[in-house]
């Protein structure tokens, strides 16, 4: 401050601008980092409502939540896996497996036995992944990539490559999970909401949830604190499988018939929803609430684009832009500057 002239030579315009602008960016960034996803969501909703007022109508909103429910239920489980510092790319093909199995068993042993049998088989797959990643400490990306392929093969082998259909579509109570209503709300929404509440509390309020964050945040430090890391990771994959089985049940119940590939590609949409919700792929951060917001954003984007007359695939492009913007702003807020400092 005393010798401005003397220092002028070295204080380049760009550098001087570095101070205040960096601070502004950081303030806006800090706000965005905390509430960014909600702000984006709000802007998005307002925009589409202005474009088409039907967008915000209760019927439409219910419709969106309902059609997001299957993806949403899967995303709940993947949230646990991602927070524990791992990935699960197998949920799509595992969901196909659950759907095909429960449809097949429905006619063979009846729905009352088919459902627990399907849950048991799906949980067994989840346990296998949990064993490989948790206890054997294999890389989760590759393990679940391999399982994606293997379970797909398993499903095709199981079904003989055929579509699976329930013989008597009108005479089964099985359709309740995908089509029924209770308490004046569609059952899929209730399942999604109920599971979200349950898992949300598990993650946020219980010792287990705390351990998931610790293991994902720093697995070594968690072990050094006496946390059984392998068991925690294993349980996360079991939870993921439980969610997948529920999603498979909802899918099967909704359509009462299915192709072998019904869940194909869902793993990436699920991951997109979780990331959009702000969970870091490095582990240790994310919440169930944010994941639900991520799921709803994806659902409303799809719906909003359809309502303004755009094809479903435009949502892919929009999702791409939104994911990158969301993660970018998050990182930018943390480092206090928009662009990466990498040379």
């Amino acid at each position, binding site marked *: 401050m005393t010798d401005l002239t003397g*220092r002028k*030579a*070295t*204080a380049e315009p760009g*550098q*001087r601008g*570095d*101070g205040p602008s*960096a*601070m502004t960016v*950081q303030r806006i960034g800090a706000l965005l980092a905390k509430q960014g996803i909600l702000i984006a969501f709000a802007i998005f909703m307002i925009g589409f409502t202005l474009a088409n007022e039907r967008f915000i109508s209760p019927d439409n909103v219910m419709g969106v939540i309902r059609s997001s429910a299957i993806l949403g239920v899967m995303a709940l489980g993947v949230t646990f896996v991602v927070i524990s510092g791992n990935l699960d790319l197998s949920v799509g093909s595992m969901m196909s497996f659950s759907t095909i199995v429960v449809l097949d068993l429905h006619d063979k042993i009846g729905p009352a036995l088919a459902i627990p049998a399907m849950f048991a088989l799906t949980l067994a797959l989840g346990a296998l992944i949990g064993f490989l990643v948790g206890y054997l400490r294999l890389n989760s990306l590759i393990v679940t990539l391999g399982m994606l392929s293997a379970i797909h093969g398993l499903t095709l082998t199981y079904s003989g490559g055929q579509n699976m259909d329930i013989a008597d579509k009108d005479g089964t109570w099985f359709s309740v999970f995908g089509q029924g209503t209770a308490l004046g709300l569609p059952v899929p929404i209730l399942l999604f909401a109920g599971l979200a509440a349950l898992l949300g*509390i598990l993650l946020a*309020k*219980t*010792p287990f949830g*705390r*351990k998931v*964050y*610790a293991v994902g*945040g*720093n697995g*070594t*430090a*968690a*072990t*050094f*604190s*006496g*946390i*059984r890391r392998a068991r925690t990771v294993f349980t996360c994959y079991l939870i993921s499988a439980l969610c997948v089985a529920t999603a498979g049940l909802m899918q099967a119940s909704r359509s009462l018939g299915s192709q072998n590939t019904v869940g194909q590609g869902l793993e990436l949409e699920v991951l997109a929803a979780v990331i959009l919700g702000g969970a870091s792929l490095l582990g*240790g*951060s994310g919440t169930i609430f944010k994941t639900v917001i991520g799921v709803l954003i994806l659902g409303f984007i799809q719906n909003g684009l359809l309502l303004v007359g755009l094809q479903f695939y435009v949502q892919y492009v929009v999702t791409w832009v939104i994911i990158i913007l969301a993660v970018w702003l998050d990182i930018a807020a943390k480092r*206090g500057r928009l662009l990466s400092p990498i*040379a």
Partner: protein
Amino acid sequence: MTAPDQAVPALRLESIVKAFPGVRALDGVSFDVRPGEVHALMGENGAGKSTLMKVLGGIYQPNEGRIFLGEQPVRMTSPLEAKQNGVVFIHQELSLAAELSVAENVYLGALPRKSFGRVDWTTLYNRTDTILTRLKVGFNARTRVGTLSIANQQMVEIARALTHEAKAVIFDEPTASLTDAEKTVLFEVIADLKAHGVGIIYISHRMEEIFRITDRITVLRDGQYRGTLVTAETDEDAVTQAMIGRKLDLSRNEARSAPGEVALETRQLCCGALFRDVSFQIRRGEVVGFYGLVGAGRTEIAEALFGLREPSGGQILLAGQPVRIHSPADAIAHGISLVPEDRKGQGLVLGMNCRDNMTLPQVDDLTAGPFVSDGAEIAIFDQYRDRLDIRTPGWRQLVGNLSGGNQQKIVIGKWLSMHPDVLIVDEPTRGIDVGSKSEIHKLIRALADQGYAVMVISSEMPEVLHVSDRIIAMYHGELIREFTAAEVTEDNLIQAISGIRPGPPDAAA
């Protein structure tokens, strides 16, 4: 000392200011390094040393101030530019690619080029071997870096500094992982650089080294320049005072009342090639220091006691009862706690808040129904924050944002709140500023007075001498000798950890 005074400095910084939102990390720092001078840069953690180095290395741009190389003002806008200007860093954390050859690492970023962007291997290997010869090392340019010892990897870093006409070389805590023999080689290399007229900035916490090899010492505190001392005309006390503004108490531990019953005992404990026939006892109310060179097996014993390694033989007894410990969870259940060596890697989940970190080992027990009890957690946090004087704005603060000393107190609080019978503390003050250091020393003493059995592993002799009731010297995986606080001297401790067996009493003195 008059000739260098008149010479143009190799590197000169003038009134450097670097501000981050809310904090002035560097507030008008000036200093210079003359050709052929070793200039120490000292200060507590957070004093601004690393920010200053990042400014020099082109990673940060200063808000104000100028950098001169010789008489030329320069701007460092990238690490590459710093390097091209002849400013070379030897980093604290090794900065090598393990899968590549020594030569590729030495010339990383400047590989000799042939047509079509090809690497000129002949030139590369020849040049590298020339440098390696100068360093008198036992490996060649084609060796894969991953196969080298830490010390040899450090030599690769140094070789990198010699690839071009360096005007200034900056050593950042270079001896942190070196043995004494390796240090000697390093100091020879520094002397060699010095003789070639290179200006050297030497950053270290270790006073002994500073007084052994440097010519001048510049001290920073709170981002401000606190003066430059001529090494030959000052002493450790003066430097410490400049760094922290007061004196540090590192006097020897006073003998105290007799310790209680045996809390921890090992009998012929072995673990593969790591350590053998380790037998010792730690009593309640006693601090036992484990001293030895890096790799002597001290940390590995702690890891075996904490269930992180499976012993290949021998026994562990707690309060006289033999126990088997297969995991940290087992160890904790048996009343053993470990404050690990690597605070950030092993001790803390940096992205978690202070409270959650502190209660992590007992989160299963702090419940109300199926849920974690907020109240119980906060009560524990408050209790240990007050007892250990942890300075944090509140329990919601992320641990990653605390200073090293406060982080270490969180780790210690975490384990004290478990009320262990045996507390193992591995390198309790590594990377911690001088002020917090003495607080932690006092704390360790106080814990023993309260009846804890404390095992302290440290590579800093003053620390071991200061806190321990007994000292066990280790060498190559074996317990070499045990000293009481009364009989130990620096000389016989050094001899013991260098593998020199105790001779007759007069020889030891």
